[in-house]
């Protein structure tokens, strides 16, 4: 017996909390992947990343409404189309923003922070004007509802499993794009030595734009996934942005593995602590430990050893 619980109850609760943590982890990873590409590779702070995510969520919402009113037969599979559209919408907006704003600010990273914060305010108000201030939810197809019972007490929701699977797929895809493809090689070459990369014939401007677009596009997919586990409102993106930045910085900005590891640590720490204390105190303790560890180890958990 532990407290008022029997052992099996206790472990079931641990498992449930762990699973809730895993879903949080998946959302963190999806958001942080895009940010890690933009911040880690390009050094640009994109404070509007949350709003790119919300764009993906709204695209999914529109898609679900459209399909359920005009093509109900396709409803079970609309989600896959929605994800592609969400990616494309955020990707396109990302290209536009890079062209209009970011490319002028590459030498002033702190100013990208302020400018993209301004962008996030504009986007938030835009969402509010178009979709209303109320939160909107997405109807899920039947096969995504319900849950799988592992034991008598432990139940695992299917949409949570789906988000995890999606995260895994996207992470693998990003790994291959960044570390196994010719394009990824060019991206890393540009980020490490822009002048030299330009000298060997890489179009650095194009690489910058595509990298930024890709990061934003992944945020769009994160937004689509987000609709499955929560509702979407104009300011939802802002709630996650600080957490996501901490995830990226904590993991070591340029390291994919670090991002995943730190997302895992932070989300598990938070969901485990939520069991023992109030949610807000759990959050305070988690963020505080991250900040303290960052003060001890400013470069993050995993760092690439490169010459500056």
């Amino acid at each position, binding site marked *: 017996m532990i407290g008022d619980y029997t052992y099996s109850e206790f472990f079931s609760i641990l498992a449930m909390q762990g699973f809730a943590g895993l879903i949080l982890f998946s959302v963190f990873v999806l958001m942080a992947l895009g940010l890690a590409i933009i911040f880690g590779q390009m*050094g640009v*702070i994109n404070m509007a990343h949350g709003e790119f995510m919300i764009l993906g969520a709204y695209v999914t919402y529109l898609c679900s409404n459209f399909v359920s009113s005009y093509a109900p037969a396709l409803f079970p599979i609309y989600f896959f189309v929605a994800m592609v559209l969400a990616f494309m919408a955020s990707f396109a907006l990302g290209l536009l923003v890079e062209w209009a*704003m970011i490319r*002028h*600010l590459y*030498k*002033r*990273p*702190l*100013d990208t*922070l*302020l*400018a993209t*914060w*301004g*962008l*996030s*305010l*504009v*986007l*938030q*108000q*835009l969402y*509010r*004007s178009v979709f209303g201030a109320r939160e909107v939810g997405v109807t899920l197809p039947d096969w995504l509802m319900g849950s799988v019972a592992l034991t008598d007490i432990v139940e695992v929701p299917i949409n949570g499993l789906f988000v995890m699977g999606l995260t895994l797929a996207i992470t693998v895809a990003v790994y291959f794009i960044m570390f196994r493809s010719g394009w990824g090689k060019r991206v890393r070459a540009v980020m490490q030595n822009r002048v030299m990369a330009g000298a060997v014939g890489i179009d650095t401007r194009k690489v910058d734009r595509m990298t930024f677009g890709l990061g934003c596009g992944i945020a769009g997919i994160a937004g689509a996934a987000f609709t499955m586990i929560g509702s979407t409102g104009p300011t939802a993106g*802002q709630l996650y942005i*600080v957490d996501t*930045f*901490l995830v990226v*910085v904590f993991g070591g900005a340029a390291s994919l593995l670090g991002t995943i590891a730190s997302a895992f640590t932070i989300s598990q720490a938070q969901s485990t602590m939520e069991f023992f204390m*109030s949610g*807000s*105190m759990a*959050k*305070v303790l988690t*963020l*505080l430990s*991250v*900040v303290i560890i*960052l*003060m*001890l180890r*400013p470069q993050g958990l995993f760092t690439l050893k490169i010459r500056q």
Partner: protein
Amino acid sequence: MNALSNPFFTRQGWLYLAILAVLLLVVFPLALDPFRLNLVGKYLTYAFVALGLVLCWGHGGILSLGQGVFFGLGGYCMAMFLKLESSSPENTAIQSTPGIPDFMDWNQVTALPWWWEPFHSLPFTIVAVIAVPAIFAFIIGFAMFTRRVGGVYFAIITQAVAAILTILIIGQQGYTGGVNGITDLRTLLGWDIRTNDAKTILYFVCAGLLIACLLLSQAVHISKFGRLLIAIRDKEDRVRFSGYDVAAFKIFVFCFAAALAAIGGAMFTLQVGFMSPSFVGIVPSIEMVIFAAVGGRLSLFGAIYGTLLVNYAKTSFSETFPELWLFAMGGLFIAVVMAFPDGIAGLYNRYIAPHVARLLGSIRKRDAEGQSLAHPAE
């Protein structure tokens, strides 16, 4: 410019100071009704933060996105004192535990927490308004700057600190008043701060303090320390190799900015009559940065005018077109960063200051404040 015979202000600088003083101490009090004057007083409290940011961010290159933390800490220290005064046993006789603030009573806290006790004393409170945020800034600054964390990482971590403090204040409702903050503040040593007369007097105190802080900031700016600060911003390694303790300078300027923000926070509490977590978090902290940016991140005078202008625009916009305000604010962020990074002061120095200089009859065209400092090379 001869750096060794560094005058406190140029002739133009004294003129600007006189204009500012007349505007704040004569024009506004005569032209505005008490309600509007109180509103301007509220804006001026943000100008303290902007002054600190000019030194810390514009000159020092340290962008802190956590100034709301220091503003809030200063404001909360003052609010705790005022709250204890208005929670005398007679005033709170209907509570189940008289003598403690009402929100504690609502949250089943039966005794005053130990860290509230010292705030019965006004001298302690005044010291705490400055000391608590400064010590807090020292801890953050020491941990970060001695380990050479800077730039973007510093900004993100200060932002996280702002998030942590907001969550903490909201979560610990019984001790901090939660999301409503500390409200219903009535008297300062028996003097009712809610009357129009009191608000006018507090406005003058605030404006006077602001001018004093401006002079203090200018003193820091023209000192050898101020010059080193700019050197650190532009080429940190060179300053370090020359044998200076870069971290100590950065810690000092960060604490200085924090103390200024805290004075602003305390004046805010006095003039507005409450303090809440909505002035602590990430959003207000970034807004404070934009006040300084609009005014001109390199100009102390610019920071004050920028704060007044942005807040005036915010008030009048959100009264008439609440929808448009976020668009305008967002557009302002983007425009200031992309089109005129030196803000209003930069535009002024470029187009108007030369004419003013000619009118003043100075033979040698002196650089106006800020213009001599090249833009941060990041």
